[in-house]
């Protein structure tokens, strides 16, 4: 199964300035990870995950509903994350790490495409 997920994530590699992509489960464990560049991102995946948990909590307290997508911008890299639920309604976090100047619209398009495939992945 991780191989199948990795295969889905490969499509992000064709986007200019994408440094890496990973999928975490709801406990923050890495299900799949592809790094396409030697450049070190500004923060670690576990910190992105901590941000995700805070984002969920804030959404709850401010009655904003489910957190669907978030974007963290740092000086040398940025992180787009998307919440995905699989067939068993278990949440996963897709994180795309990219460089300044990346076409975010393109990343979002690819996320929506890949999201549909990941939603079909059994637990």
């Amino acid at each position: 199964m991780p191989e199948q997920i990795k295969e889905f994530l490969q499509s992000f590699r064709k986007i200019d300035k994408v440094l890496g992509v990973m999928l975490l489960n709801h406990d923050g464990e890495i299900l799949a990870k592809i790094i396409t560049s030697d450049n070190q991102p500004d923060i670690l995946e576990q910190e992105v995950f901590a941000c995700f948990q805070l984002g969920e909590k804030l959404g709850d307290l401010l009655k904003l509903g489910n957190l669907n997508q978030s974007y963290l911008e740092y000086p040398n890299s940025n992180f787009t994350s998307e919440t995905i639920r699989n067939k068993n309604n278990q949440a996963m976090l897709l994180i795309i790490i990219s460089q300044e100047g990346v076409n975010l619209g393109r990343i979002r398009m690819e996320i929506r495409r890949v999201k549909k495939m990941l939603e079909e992945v059994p637990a």
Partner: protein
Amino acid sequence: MIRLDERLEKLNKRVAENPQNIESWLTLAQANYYRGNYLEAISAYEQITNIDPQLWETQLGIAQILEEIKQYQNALQILNKYAVEHPNEVFGYLLFLKFQNNPEIKEGLGELSALYKKFSPAKENIDLAIKSTGNNLPIIEEFIEDLQTLENPSILDKFLKTTAEAQKEQLNEDLKKLKELEKKAKPMTGGELSQLSSQMETVAQELNASPLEQEIKELLNAKGIILAVILDRKGAIKAQFVKEDSFEGNLQQIFKDAGEVLQNIQTINNLHYWLLEYDHGLLVIYNLNQDWFLICQGMLGTNFGALRYMIEQKKQTLCSLLPGGGS
């Protein structure tokens, strides 16, 4: 415009050199759209569909342009096809709402209304967002907002001016109503009293606002923004502004909890900003300097590009008004 024309030239060169590069075609489509070169924009979108037919969202870009150039039948045909194939995608629904506000195309929306009925719980929020954006909710906004802000800030300036004028008009209308009430000189009902009291509270809040609060209040002019707060690293609120009746809850407690988590993120001082998108709106956490965050909450449909532009414009002033100055 010169900058945009130069950019278009470069983009055209780029797609000629690498015709399989989707990003280049997308950027070219967006730039042409902004320049008003609609046919070229459509052609660029079509190229993307040829390269990867699964990138169906480009169809919405085309439908929006067709509506703008009054090719209503073709625009409807695309949106109908899209809605049948992707009935759960809110992006089609947003375009549907935009069409609904066009009297010339509204009649042809019958089948779509039934298809998009499921979105009705979100309708109120979206309608409000459309209203606050002056009925301008481009479906490809999320792709082009950066370009809009960087390439053509006059669009934003125009929007801000329109918003200020609309507020002035509203104020005049309110004054007229007040004078009519005075003439009638009837005892006020409980509802009228409560409304007046609420209006007076808002006015009092504005009059008592500190320079810092005045500054963050102006951020609420960005379309869809309903809350702006400044807090320190521990989550203690220094200043806040909330649009009338838009929020219930203990902000102090909510952001104190947030501050505790943010403190534990080691690299937080380097963060520029953090954008969070939810079912019913968005949050932006902006790092003003090493001591202060600015947090804004917006409704569904909020133009983040415009908000970011405003924050960047105000950042220095805000920092100078905060303890610690512009550190």
